C-alpha cells in the first residue's frame, strides 16, 4: 500500500488529485514546468519538483524525468490524470518495472483499447455492438479501404487507428471524394500520432455521444456509475457534459451499463475508465472507444452518485475492493458541467492568453468549481485552454440549468477572454433546454446571436455603460495631462534657467 503519490499532470486535474490524496492522508508530489512555478498544484502539493521548460514535450511528457523524481522523492505511486502520459502503455509498464504503483489500468488494457481497430475487434468478440465499419486490425491500404467503403455505406468516417480528439478524422459523403480525404486523414494522423493508419466507420447521423463511467477493482468486480451525456461538442471537443442523459430511460441505462461493464471485462480492466457510445435517434447504441483513464467530466457523475471517483481510484490502486456494489450506486438529481476555456466565443473561439487580474467564483448551494487558476496566474499558450470546470447539481435537470445560468452570470474572470458567454447562450437555447441536440448541434444549429428582442433591450444599457466608461477615461486622461504639465515644470524651469543665464 502506497503512501506518497506523484501527480504527473498540471492544472485543475492535478489540483483535484492532490485534494483527494490529502483527504485520504496521502503525501503528494507535484511536478511542474518552468511556466508553472506558481501554479496551484505546485502550491498545494507537499513536494514539488521542476521538470523542465514550458513545452509539454520538455516537461509533462518527459516520462524519464518524472520516474526519476518519483524515485528520488520516494513516491510509491503515480497518478497520471488525463492527457499527457495517461494512456501511454509504455509509461504504465515502466512504472510497474520500477515498482511504482500506476493509478490506472494494466498496461495490457491500455494497449488493447489504445489501438481503435484492435479495441473494436476485442469488444465485438465480447458481444458489444460497434458502429459498422472495417473490422480488420492494422494496415489496410487505400485500395482495400476504397473497396470496402460501399459495403460500410455512405456517409462514413475515416478515423485514425491511434486516434483521439478528432485528429485524422474525415467525413466522406461519396466514393469520389474518398481518395483525397484518405490522404489528408493519413497525413494528419501521421503528424499527430506518428501513425498514419486509418479505418472506416459508418457515420451515425443525428447521433448522441453518451459515455458510461466504469470502476473496477483487482478482484474482478466491475460496476458502472451511470452515463454522461457529452453531445455538446465543437470540433470534436466536449464543451458541456451532464448526468444523467435526458435521452436515456432506466431500461436503456441498465442495458448500456451492462454492455459497458462487459466491454471493460473484455480487456480485464482495473481502476476507472469510460466506455464511449454513439446512440442514434432510434436508441441503437454502438461502442465507440474506451478511455482508459479518469475523464475531465468525471465530476458530473460524482455529483449524482455521491461517489468520489478519484478517491475510489486510489483505494482500488491500493489493492482494496470497490466500496460499492452495483446495487449501492443510486442516482440523485441532475448535474451539468461547463468547461470554461480561455477562448473568445465572439471571435471564432480564438484562444486567449494573459494574466488573470481578478476573479470571482460562483459559489453557494449545488455549485462546484474545479480549477487550477487564481488572480495573478498567467495563462500561457503552452497547454490546453481549459481553465476551470463549473459544475452544478439540481434536483431536476430544469433546476440544474437555472442554477448553471445564475452561476455563469456570477462568474468573473478578468485578464483573459473566456467562453462563459457561449455557455450562457447555450443555457438560454430552447433546444438545449428541451434536451434536443446531437453531436452536430453546436456547429450546425447554434448561434451566439441572442434573440433580437433581448438584444434590443440590452443594447441601450450597453451603450450607456460604454459611454460612461469612455467619459471617465477622457476625464482621467485630462487629469493625467494636467498632472504631467505640473511634473514637467522642473524641466521647464531648467529651460528657463538656461535661457536666463545664456
Amino acid at each position, binding site marked *: 500500500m502506497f503512501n506518497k503519490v506523484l501527480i504527473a499532470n498540471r492544472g485543475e486535474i492535478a489540483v483535484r488529485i492532490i485534494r483527494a490524496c490529502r483527504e485520504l492522508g496521502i503525501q503528494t508530489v507535484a511536478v511542474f514546468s518552468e511556466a508553472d512555478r506558481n501554479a496551484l498544484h505546485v502550491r498545494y502539493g507537499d513536494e514539488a519538483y521542476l521538470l523542465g521548460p514550458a513545452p509539454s514535450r520538455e516537461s509533462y511528457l518527459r516520462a524519464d524525468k518524472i520516474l526519476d523524481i518519483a524515485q528520488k522523492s520516494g513516491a510509491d505511486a503515480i497518478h497520471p490524470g488525463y492527457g499527457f502520459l495517461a494512456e501511454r502503455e509504455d509509461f504504465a509498464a515502466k512504472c510497474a518495472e520500477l515498482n511504482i504503483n500506476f493509478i490506472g489500468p494494466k498496461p495490457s488494457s491500455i494497449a488493447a483499447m489504445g489501438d481503435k481497430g484492435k479495441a473494436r475487434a476485442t469488444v465485438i468478440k465480447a458481444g458489444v455492438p460497434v458502429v459498422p465499419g472495417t473490422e480488420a486490425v492494422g494496415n489496410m491500404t487505400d485500395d482495400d479501404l476504397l473497396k470496402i467503403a460501399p459495403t460500410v455505406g455512405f456517409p462514413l468516417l475515416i478515423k485514425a487507428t491511434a486516434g483521439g480528439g478528432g485528429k485524422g478524422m474525415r467525413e466522406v459523403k461519396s466514393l469520389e471524394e474518398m481518395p483525397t480525404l484518405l490522404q489528408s486523414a493519413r497525413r494528419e494522423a501521421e503528424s499527430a500520432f506518428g501513425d498514419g493508419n486509418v479505418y472506416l466507420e459508418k457515420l451515425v447521423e443525428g447521433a448522441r455521444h453518451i459515455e458510461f463511467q466504469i470502476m473496477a477493482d483487482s478482484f474482478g468486480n466491475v460496476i458502472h456509475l451511470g452515463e454522461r451525456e457529452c453531445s455538446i461538442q465543437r470540433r470534436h471537443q466536449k464543451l458541456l457534459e451532464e448526468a444523467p442523459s435526458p435521452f436515456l430511460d432506466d431500461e436503456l441505462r441498465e442495458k448500456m451499463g451492462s454492455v459497458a461493464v462487459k466491454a471493460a471485462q473484455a480487456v480485464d480492466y482495473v481502476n476507472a475508465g469510460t466506455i464511449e457510445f454513439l446512440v442514434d435517434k432510434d436508441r441503437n447504441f454502438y461502442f465507440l472507444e474506451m478511455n482508459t483513464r479518469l475523464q475531465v467530466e468525471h465530476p458530473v457523475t460524482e455529483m449524482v452518485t455521491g461517489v468520489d471517483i478519484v478517491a475510489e481510484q486510489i483505494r482500488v490502486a491500493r489493492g482494496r475492493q470497490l466500496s460499492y456494489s452495483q446495487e449501492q450506486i443510486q442516482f440523485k438529481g441532475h448535474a451539468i458541467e461547463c468547461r470554461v476555456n480561455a477562448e473568445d466565443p465572439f471571435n471564432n473561439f480564438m484562444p486567449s492568453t494573459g494574466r488573470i487580474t481578478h476573479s470571482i467564483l460562483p459559489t453557494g448551494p449545488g455549485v462546484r468549481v474545479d480549477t487550477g487558476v487564481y488572480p495573478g496566474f498567467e495563462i500561457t499558450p503552452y497547454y490546453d485552454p481549459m481553465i476551470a470546470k463549473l459544475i452544478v447539481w439540481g434536483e431536476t435537470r430544469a433546476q440544474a440549468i437555472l442554477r448553471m445560468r445564475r452561476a455563469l452570470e456570477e462568474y468573473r474572470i478578468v485578464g483573459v477572454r473566456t467562453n462563459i458567454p457561449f455557455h450562457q447562450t447555450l443555457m438560454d437555447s430552447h433546444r438545449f433546454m428541451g434536451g434536443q441536440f446531437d453531436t452536430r448541434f453546436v456547429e450546425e444549429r447554434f448561434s451566439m446571436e441572442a434573440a433580437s428582442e433581448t438584444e434590443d433591450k440590452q443594447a441601450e444599457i450597453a451603450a450607456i455603460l460604454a*459611454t460612461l*466608461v*469612455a467619459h471617465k477615461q477622457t476625464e482621467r486622461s485630462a487629469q493625467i495631462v494636467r498632472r504631467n504639465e505640473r511634473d514637467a515644470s522642473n524641466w521647464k524651469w531648467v529651460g528657463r534657467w538656461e535661457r536666463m543665464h545664456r
Partner: protein
Amino acid sequence: MKYVTTINDKEFEIEIVDDHHIRIGDRLLAVDFESVSGQPVFSLILDGKSYESYVYQGDEDWQVLLRGQQFQVKIEDEREKRLKSAAGGGVAEGGEFHLKAPMPGLVVSILVEEGQEIKKGQVMLILESMKMQNELKAPRDGTMGRIRVKAGESVEQKQALLSIH
C-alpha cells in the same frame, strides 16, 4: 458632455449631465456607476436597476459584454461627430490591413501567397496555440501583401504576420 453612441447602426444620444445623472434622448436617468476593484468590470445602477458588465476598449470601438451578450460600441462626442459629418463623413474603407498574431504560437501553415486575390472570410494562416489549430481569416476582400512569417515559425503575441492591400 454629449456623446453619440452607436450599436449596430442604432444611435443613442447620451448626455453626461453630472456625476449622478445622464440624459438619453429626453429621459433624465439617475446613475450610480463604479468600477469593480479597479478592473474593467463595471457596476451600474440605473434608476434602481443593477447591471454589471465587462467593458473593453478596442482599437476603434468599445466592446461591452453584458449578461452573455457582446456589443460593439462606437462612441463619438457630439463635436467630433459634427466635424466629421461636415467633412463629408465616412472613413476610407481601404487602406492596408495588418494581421497580427492574436496570441503567441506556432505557424502551422500559410494558405495564401503574396499578390494573391483573397475574399473576406478566407483562411489565410493556421496558428497553433494551446493545443488548438486556429484559423486566421481575412477580414475583407483584397490582395495579399507582404507575408512576414514562414510555416514552422514561432511567433510572439501581436507580431505582424501578413498584410492585405
